[in-house]
C-alpha cells in the first residue's frame, strides 16, 4: 500500500495540474487577504475577524476537491487506469492509495495557504498597530481543522471521480452540488442543509465551536458528516470500479 501511495504522489508531482492548483490557491488566498486588509478599519478589528481571515480555506477545500475529481476521473480520461490496474490489480487498494495521496496533497495545499496568509496578516496588523488575533489554542484549532478539511476534501474528490469517471460530468456535477443544490437546501431546509457536503465541510473548516451559525453543525459533527460523505463516495466508487470493465 505504501508504494502505491508513493506512486500516486509521484503522479501528482509529475504533471502540471498540482502546481497549477497550488498557484491558483496561493493566488486566490493572496487576493482575498490583500483585499480584506486593504479595506480593514484598524480601530474595529476583533479577534474573530483575524481568525476568519486565516480560514479563507473554504475555497481552498473546494479547489482541493476539484483536484481529487480531476485526479481520479483523469485515469479514465487518459486511459491510465489500464496501466494503473496492471501494476496494482487490487482495485480497492488503488482507490485507497489515491484517496490517501490526495488527502496528503490537500493538507500540503491547505498548509501553504494558511502559512502564506499568516505571513501576510500578522506583519500587516503589526504595521497597523492592531493588537487582535485568535489565541494560540484557537489558532491551532483553525490550522488543524483546515488541514483536516483539506484532507477529507481531497479524498472526497477521488470518491466523486471514481463514481463519475467522465471528467466533465464529474466536475460539472460537483460544482452544481456545491454552488447550487447545497446552498438551496441550506436556505430552504436548514435542518437538512447543514448535513450537505459543503455545509458539513465548512463547519469543519471554520472550526467555530459553539459560536457559529445556529443552523450549522459543530466542527466535530461537521467533520464526521463530511468524512461520511467522503467514505460513502469512496465506497461507491470502489464498488463501481470493481465491476467496471476496462475496455
Amino acid at each position, binding site marked *: 500500500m505504501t508504494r502505491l501511495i508513493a506512486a500516486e504522489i509521484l503522479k501528482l508531482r509529475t504533471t502540471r495540474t498540482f502546481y497549477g492548483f497550488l498557484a491558483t490557491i496561493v493566488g486566490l488566498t493572496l487576493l482575498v487577504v490583500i483585499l480584506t486588509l486593504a479595506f480593514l478599519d484598524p480601530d474595529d478589528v476583533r479577534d474573530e475577524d483575524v481568525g476568519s481571515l486565516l480560514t479563507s480555506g473554504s475555497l481552498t477545500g473546494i479547489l482541493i476537491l476539484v483536484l481529487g475529481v480531476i485526479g481520479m476521473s483523469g485515469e479514465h480520461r487518459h486511459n491510465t487506469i489500464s496501466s494503473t490496474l496492471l501494476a496494482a490489480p487490487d482495485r480497492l487498494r488503488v482507490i485507497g492509495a489515491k484517496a490517501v495521496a490526495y488527502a496528503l496533497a490537500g493538507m500540503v495545499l491547505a498548509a501553504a495557504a494558511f502559512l502564506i496568509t499568516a505571513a501576510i496578516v500578522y506583519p500587516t496588523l503589526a504595521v497597523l498597530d492592531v493588537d487582535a488575533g485568535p489565541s494560540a489554542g484557537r489558532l491551532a484549532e483553525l490550522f488543524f481543522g483546515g488541514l483536516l478539511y483539506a484532507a477529507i476534501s481531497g479524498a472526497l474528490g477521488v470518491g466523486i471521480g471514481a463514481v463519475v469517471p467522465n471528467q466533465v460530468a464529474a466536475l460539472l456535477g460537483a460544482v452544481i452540488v456545491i454552488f447550487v443544490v447545497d446552498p438551496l437546501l441550506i436556505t430552504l431546509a436548514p435542518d437538512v442543509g447543514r448535513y450537505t457536503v459543503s455545509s458539513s465541510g465548512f463547519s469543519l473548516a471554520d472550526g467555530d465551536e459553539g459560536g457559529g451559525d445556529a443552523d450549522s453543525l459543530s466542527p466535530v459533527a461537521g467533520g464526521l458528516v463530511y468524512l461520511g460523505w467522503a467514505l460513502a463516495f469512496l465506497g461507491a466508487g470502489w464498488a463501481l470500479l470493481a465491476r467496471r*470493465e476496462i475496455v
Partner: protein
Amino acid sequence: MLYQCEGVAQIVIDSLTKRFGSTVAVDDLSFAVEPGTVVGFLGPNGAGKTTTLRALLGLVRPDSGTATIDGRSYAQLPDPLETVGAVLERSAFHPGRSGRNHLRVLATAAGLPGSRADELLTLVGLADARDKRVGGYSLGMRQRLALATALLGDPQVLVLDEPANGLDPLGIRWLRDFLRARAAEGRSVLVSSHVLAEVEQTVDTVVMVARGRLVAESSLEELRTRASAGAGAVKLRSPQAPRLAQLLGERGARVVQDGGDTMLLAGTTSEMVGDLAASHRIPVYELTTEGQGLEEIFLSLTADQAAP
C-alpha cells in the same frame, strides 16, 4: 478443451467466453502459449483479440472459462509486472507526464527501482526524449514507450495488443527484431495483429480467431507448408505457351487464364512446367508461382467467420 503444457511462464486460455450485451466477443476460445515462443494472435478487427488479452490481464471479467498465466489469474499474481508485461491497443499515458516519469510512476507502484526507467528508455531508443512530455511523442515513440513499460519488471511473459499499429516500415522492422530478441531471452510473447504480414517474420505459431472463435492454430512452418501445397496457379510466359499447356494438360494441369503467350495454369507446379519445357526444348521467358500466400490462407480462414 484444456491444453496441457509443461514449463514456466505459460499462458493458457481455456474455454473463454465473454459477451458484451447481446454481442459475443469471445466464444469458447482455447489455446496456449508455450514458454519461449512467439505466438501471433491473428484475426480481423472485432474478432475478439483485444477482449481475450484484456481478460488475460484482468481488465475484463470473462463470463465463463479462464485465462491464466502460470496457472493463476492476473489478479492472483504476487508481482504482476514482474510476471507479465503488456502493451495495450489504446495508449495509456498521461499526455502531460514525461516518458521517464511515466515509467517511474509504474516502477514505484510495482516496487521496482526507478533506475529501470532510464535503462529501458535507452533500450527502446527513447533516451533523448526521456524528459519530453508524452503528449509530444509521435505514434512510434509511444509504441516504444509502451514496450518499455511492458519490460519494466523484466517479465517472462509479454502480451502485446497490435504493437505494430501505426508504425512505419522501419518501426515494424525494429519491433520485429525487438520481439525476436525478447523471445531469444526465453520469454513467451503473445502478440496480436489483424495483419499477418506484420508478424509473419516474428512468430513461431499462429492462433487465428474470427468472431471470437478459434479458426486455426498451427506453427508458422505448417502454415507455410499448407500455403505451398495449396499453390493455386503457375504463371507462364512462352512463345509456345499453347503447346506447353497442352503437354501439361495431359499431366493433369488446366488453363485458368489464357492470354496467348501468357497463361495461368492450375494443378501443376513451377518445377513440373520447367522440367517439361526443358525436356521439349520449349523456351520459357517467365515462370512464377502465383501461390496462395500466408495472407490468403489467413483471409480464407477468417473470411467466412468475419462476414457480417
